[in-house]
C-alpha cells in the first residue's frame, strides 16, 4: 500500500490573518500544517498500519508520502507530518507557481502524484476536507479529475477490502447536507476525509526528534514536466481585485443576568426589529 497525502501549509487560525496586495499574508512562524490534513495523514497511516497488522504486507512494507505545494516555509507543515510518522515529505516549490488557483494547485499536485507513480505505483491519494485558509473543498475533486481516478469525497468512515481481494474496493460513508451516502470505488482512487473520520494522533518523542533532521525533497515545475500555462498566476482563471478588512463591530451591549436577562434579550431583538 503506497499512499500519497496532499497537505497544505496555511496561516494559523489562531493568529491575525489577512491580505497584502491581494495575496494572503504568510508570516514566517505563524503558519501550520492545515489541521484538517492531519485527519488525512491519520487515515493514511491507519490504512498502512492495518495492512501490516493483518499480515497483508510485511512489517516494513507500505509507505505514506506527503506532498505540499508551498514556499520554503511550507517545510513547517512537512516537519509536522514527519512527527506524525509519515515516511517521505516532498515540497513542490517554484516562483512560477505563485498565485495558482484551484485548478493550478490540482494540476501541480496531480503531476507530483504522477511522478511518484512513475517510481512505483501509487494506490491511493488522501486529502483533507478543506484548507482552512480558503475553505474551498474543491482541490480533492479536481485532483481526481486531473488524475482520471475515481474520487470519494468527505468520508466520515473508510473501509478497504483486504489485501488479496480480487479488486481492492474502497468504501466510504459520508454525511453531507442532510444526506447519508455509501459509495465505493476500486483502487487506485482519491479520497478526502472529514474531521469526523478519526482523531489525529499525538507525535511521539522519537518521531519529534527524528523529524528535525529528516530530508525534505524539493521539486520544481521543471521536475514535474509542468506546462507553465496551467499553474501560477498566469494560468489562474480568477483574479483577485481587492481585499479589505471589514469594519470592526461596534462595542457590544452586555447585560449580566440578575433575573431579567431573558427579558433584556427579547427586548434587544424586538427593539432592533429582529423578531
Amino acid at each position, binding site marked *: 500500500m503506497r499512499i500519497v497525502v496532499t497537505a497544505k501549509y496555511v496561516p494559523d*487560525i*489562531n493568529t491575525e*490573518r*489577512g*491580505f497584502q496586495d*491581494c495575496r494572503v499574508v504568510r508570516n514566517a512562524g505563524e503558519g501550520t500544517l492545515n489541521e*484538517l490534513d492531519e485527519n488525512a495523514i491519520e487515515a493514511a497511516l491507519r490504512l498502512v498500519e492495518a495492512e501490516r497488522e493483518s499480515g497483508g504486507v510485511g512489517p516494513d512494507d507500505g509507505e505514506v508520502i506527503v506532498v505540499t505545494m508551498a514556499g520554503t516555509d511550507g517545510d513547517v507543515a512537512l516537519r509536522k507530518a514527519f512527527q506524525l510518522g509519515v515516511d517521505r515529505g516532498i515540497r513542490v516549490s517554484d516562483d512560477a507557481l505563485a498565485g495558482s488557483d484551484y*485548478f493550478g494547485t490540482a494540476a501541480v499536485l496531480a503531476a507530483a502524484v504522477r511522478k511518484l507513480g512513475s517510481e512505483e505505483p501509487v494506490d491511493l491519494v488522501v486529502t483533507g476536507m478543506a484548507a*482552512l*485558509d480558503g*475553505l*474551498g*473543498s*474543491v482541490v480533492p*475533486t*479536481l485532483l481526481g*479529475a486531473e488524475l482520471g481516478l*475515481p*474520487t470519494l*469525497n*468527505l468520508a466520515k468512515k473508510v473501509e478497504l477490502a483486504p489485501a488479496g481481494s480480487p479488486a481492492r474496493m474502497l468504501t466510504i460513508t459520508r454525511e*453531507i*447536507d*442532510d*444526506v*447519508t*451516502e*455509501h459509495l*465505493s*470505488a476500486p483502487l487506485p*482512487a482519491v479520497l478526502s476525509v*472529514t*474531521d469526523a473520520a478519526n482523531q489525529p494522533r499525538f507525535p511521539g518523542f522519537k518521531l519529534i526528534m527524528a523529524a528535525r533532521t529528516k530530508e525534505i525533497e524539493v521539486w520544481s515545475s521543471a521536475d514535474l514536466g509542468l506546462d507553465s500555462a496551467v499553474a501560477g498566476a498566469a494560468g489562474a*482563471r*480568477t*483574479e*483577485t*481585485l*481587492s*481585499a*479589505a*478588512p*471589514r469594519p470592526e*463591530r*461596534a462595542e*457590544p*451591549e*452586555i*447585560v*449580566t*443576568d440578575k433575573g431579567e*436577562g*431573558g427579558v433584556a*434579550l*427579547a*427586548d*434587544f*431583538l*424586538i427593539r432592533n426589529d429582529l*423578531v
Partner: protein
Amino acid sequence: MTNRTVLVLLDPATEVRTSVLELLTIARGLGRVEAVALEAPTVEVLAQLGAYGIETVHQAELARDGACVSGDERHLPAVVAATLAAAVRLTDADVVLLPTSFAAKETAALAAHELGAGLVIDAAAVREVDGRIVAGKRVFAGAWDTECAVTTDVAVVTVRANSAVAQPAEAAVEPVTEGFAVEVAPSPVTLLSREVKADTSGRPPLDQAAVVVAGGRGTDGDFGPVEDLADALGAAVGASRDAAFEGWWDAYVGQTGVTVAPRVYIGAGISGAPHHRGGMQASQVIVAVNSDPEAPIFEICDFAVVGQLADVLPQAAAEIRKRRS
C-alpha cells in the same frame, strides 16, 4: 445589461428553496436567466419560477451507454456536473450559479473542470464589472471582504444562502420545460445507498434560516431551552462541533460544519472558538448567552447576556411570545 445567459441549478426540482430564489434574484441582475433540472419540476415549482421571471427550464434526459440514468444516481455530483456542462454548451451560457453546499462544491468543481471555466466558491455577491463576472467573498472568519473577477469566458459560482433578499420579477411569465440529452460518462464510483434525512421539525433549514439559535457544551446535553427560543423566533437550531460530537444535536455550525450567515445568530453555551466563528461570523447580528464573562464569543457579538442559559433562554422565549400576541 448585456445579453448574457445565466443558468441556475434546480436540484431537486420538486421544491424551490429560499437559497434558489435568492440565486434567481442575483442572476436576474446579470442577464437572461434559465433553470437546469434533472427531473420534471412540479406545477408549484414552475409557478414560482415564473414569478421570478424564468422562461425556460432545461430538463436533462440522462443516458449512459444507451441506458437511462434515474433514481438517486441523478443527484451524484458527477451526473449533475455533466448536466450543467451540457446545458452550458446547449445554451451558450456565460454563468452558472449554484447554492453553496458540500455537494454543490463538488458539482461546481467538476463542471468547471470540464468546461475550462473559472470557479468561485461561497460567493456572497455576484455582479458584472466592465463585462466581467466579479464575485465578492467574505474570508478569514468574516474578517475580510475580497472581490475576484473571473477571467475565463464561462464562470461557475456557488453562492452562500442569505446573500440577497429574494425578489420576484416585475412581471411573471409562464416557464416552458424543454428536454435536452445528456450523455453521462461511465463511472468507476458506485452509489451503494443514499438516504435523505427526513426533517419533521417544521423549522427552516439551518443553512438558509434568517435566524439561528445554536447550543454548545454549556447546554450540558439539554437542548430544550435552545429549541424553545428557536421556536419562539421561527429559527433553525444548530450546535457547536463539541455538542454535535457528543451526540446532543445533529447539525453543527462552523468551518467543518454548516456555514451560516443569518440576520440573527444566537449562541448559547458556546465559547466562540475560531473554528466555530469561521462558520457564523458573517452573521448580521450576533447574540451570545454565556455564564463566563470572559468567553471569546463576547469579542464578536452585538449583544450578550452573562448568565445561565437554562434561565435566560426560556425567559426570552416567553417574553417574545407574550409581546407578539
